[in-house]
């Protein structure tokens, strides 16, 4: 956020369009570069959460799986806050 964005926000004006353009581009390019559409990404996010939830108790609301790009490298970044681990093997038996 720049000084202008900040003042615009204070005055309730729309923020300058350049920062909106940059954000939108970064998002769309992350998808273009990985060849994943938002629908596939949402499905992957659900499946990743399911798998992780078998091992640890996670805060699904807080969890976030997204694509990030820097220097033309795209990374899948998962940020999943753990409440506590589940001391059970994934197939149901206690470890």
């Amino acid at each position, binding site marked *: 956020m720049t*000084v*202008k964005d900040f*003042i615009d926000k204070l005055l309730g004006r729309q923020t300058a*369009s*350049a920062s909106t353009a940059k954000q939108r*581009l970064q998002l*769309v390019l992350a998808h*273009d570069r990985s060849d994943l559409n938002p629908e596939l990404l949402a499905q992957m996010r659900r499946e990743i959460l399911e798998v992780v939830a078998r091992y640890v108790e996670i805060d699904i609301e807080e969890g976030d799986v997204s694509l990030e790009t820097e220097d033309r490298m795209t990374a899948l970044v998962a940020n999943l806050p753990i409440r506590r681990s589940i001391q059970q093997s994934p197939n149901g038996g206690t470890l």
Partner: protein
Amino acid sequence: MSTTRTILICSGKGGVGKTTTTANLGIALARLGARTVVLDADFGLRNLDLLLGLENRIVFTAQEVLAETCRLEQALVKHKQEPNLALLPAGNPRMLEWLTPKDMKAIVSLLEEQFDYVLIDCPAGIEDGFKNAAAAAREAVVVTTPEVAAVRDADRVIGLLNTQGVTPVQLVLNRVRPKMMSNQEMLSVDDVTDILALPLLGLVFEDEQVIVSTNRGEPLTLGESGSPAARAYNNIARRLQGEDIPLMDPSEARKGFRARVRQLMQTRLF
């Protein structure tokens, strides 16, 4: 081993200034003493001839050269005022089926025997036309404007060039409007270079003289015009030649109190 620099001028999106860039760079390099040929690979919708004022002088194309119905020298159209520059249209607009990557390599290797620079004007898009034009390129200049659609398409093209091993790939940011940039109503130079992660070869400010010069078929770099775009293209040519020339600063274009206020407004808070 040929020392010719074979450079693809491409953009993905149409209308961002590929052909204007090719014409102006071609003239600028020729004026610096480099033997230069511009190859119009956009043969379906060729326009490089029109921008160079050579539209009435085309007799043969690369197609006839490869078919051996004429010699290369007969197909090359020399520029009258700047004899170091020649134009070669890749093909005839009526023969849409012609041109494969193999043909492109064949014609470029003939050109590399007698020129210092081969500039290939690439068609818009990322389909066959692009792939053919890119087949013989060693390096590339990606032309884009500070607009979301142009940057997105440039990114696709850069991805393809990377997989083809074309290197270096450098960026020309065209049609920059300093006033809009300082008002943050246009992507900044840093925004675009951050997103595309390419070295910046040049910045070209929006300049009405480009339209005037296109109307006349005389690229800006042909005259002694000090117009912003002419200076920008001449600088790009010198940088290609290895000279170290500082980039124009869009905020410098608007000096004084208001510019300073604008600069303050751009300061990042967090």
